[in-house]
């Protein structure tokens, strides 16, 4: 069966510090991978998606970047965090293009102080 791992679960970082959130998927190959951000108790904003190694599409210009160094690994990064980067970050995967269900990780609660 397929599983998705996302870590860390919580993170408190000072303004101006770097960020690296990692997500890995097991049990499937060539998944589509996604990073979403969620404001407190509200909907999901798509940040990045990837259909293959090294292929990253950005939906919203911001202080963040994403990379996919391996087929089942997706990394969200920032060189210098801003207060506005605080939020709940969710990694997800799907089998193919957007017609199919998304399976989410447990999320990372990021607080920038």
């Amino acid at each position, binding site marked *: 069966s397929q599983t998705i791992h*996302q870590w860390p679960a919580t993170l408190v970082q000072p303004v101006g510090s770097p960020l690296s959130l990692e997500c890995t998927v097991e049990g499937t190959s060539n998944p*589509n991978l*996604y990073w*979403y951000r969620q404001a407190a*108790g*509200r*909907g*999901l904003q*798509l940040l990045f*998606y990837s*259909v293959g190694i090294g292929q990253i*599409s950005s*939906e919203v210009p911001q202080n963040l970047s994403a990379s996919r160094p391996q087929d089942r690994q997706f990394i969200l990064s920032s060189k210098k965090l801003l207060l506005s980067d605080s939020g709940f970050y*969710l990694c*997800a995967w799907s089998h193919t*293009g*957007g*017609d*199919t*269900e*998304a*399976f*989410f*990780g*447990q*999320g990372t*609660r990021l607080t920038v102080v």
Partner: protein
Amino acid sequence: TQLLEQSPQFLSIQEGENLTVYCNSSSVFSSLQWYRQEPGEGPVLLVTVVTGGEVKKLKRLTFQFGDARKDSSLHITAAQPGDTGLYLCAGAFYSGYALNFGKGTSLLVTP
């Protein structure tokens, strides 16, 4: 631009009551999904509807996809405290790579 509008945004009811939440759009989707999310966790898929007019039932939950594939509803019969959570709808386009999520309906069911 918010493609999917969900209503109501918040709903607080007592155990045993029925409720309906809505997901509306001016766009036509190839499929629409409903997720439930509990605090501090990722959303979990409840159902996918594909055909216009389709109705799916999951125990006390009934999902309907509009005939024109632009909207959907979720009806819960005899709500229980375990139904508490954020209900998100998400639409997929034929040519799109990622789901488009609504802002969700936050449901609280009190004993």
